[in-house]
């Protein structure tokens, strides 16, 4: 597997948006737990699933990076 410049640029630009998104999801989840610590068992699975959605968008660009 060769490492190319185009692949690197594709992967770098494609990860900016999902990175911000995952950070915001985590921040809101932690804030919600801070307000209501008893709801922890309900908030954390939803947070994990939402992070899975956001991460998939980064994976879309990673596929094209690996193919270059």
């Amino acid at each position, binding site marked *: 597997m060769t490492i190319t410049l185009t692949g690197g640029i594709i992967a770098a630009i494609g990860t900016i948006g999902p990175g911000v998104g995952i950070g915001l999801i985590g921040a809101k989840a932690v804030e919600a737990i801070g307000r209501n610590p008893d709801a922890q068992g309900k908030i954390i699975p939803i947070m994990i699933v939402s992070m*899975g959605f956001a991460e998939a968008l980064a*994976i879309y660009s990673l*596929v094209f990076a690996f193919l270059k």
Partner: protein
Amino acid sequence: MTATLAPDTLFTIGSFPITNTVVDTLLVDALIFALVIYINKNISVIPTFFQTIIELAAEQFHSLTESTAGENTKKIFPFVMTFFLFIFIANYSELLPVITGVTVKGAPLIRSTSSDLNTTLALALISIVATHTMGIRTTGFKAYLARFFSTNPIALFSGLLELVSEFTKIISFSFRLFGNIFVGGIILASITAVFAFVLPSVVMFYEMFVGFIQALIFALLTMAFMSIFTTAHSGIE
């Protein structure tokens, strides 16, 4: 090292190519059948350890489907559980220790079936077509059409947008699963070629986590869309 998008053909039966992902699909099917037969032979009222785990998973999914869908749980639950089981075992089949090292003519014998765009596209199509068919059967054809087309211009506009988003759902479903597992396989192969000891197990742990989450996301999204389509559409009144 499979950095190719398309899987390698091992041999052909007639004009149908048998690729290494087809071999993996057969392996996953065999595993699921063996699981079903084993559970059914030793079923008992006081469950053993294995039966408890299966009952736990099935019950969690059933209660989750019931809280989302309500009355249509009987139709929706089989789809959800089947998608989850198949995709879960298919995602984990790329982590099997010995079998994945066997090569036939230079190409690996087994490549995870969800790292093939054909499989994920087929699963996405099955999910969307089943959702629409279930919607037509449950609410009737007129209510199904009223979801997309109506006389109110604003509702008509949003209905057409929803129609387009049905197609993007197919692309999103297939590429999410394909991208995660395909890239995971490549990363695992690359790391194992460079480091021999500690780092591959860390990456493998991450791959186990991702495999579970992606199977869960596919099943949960299917369940959400099916429950949306089987309840009456509340338009702009």
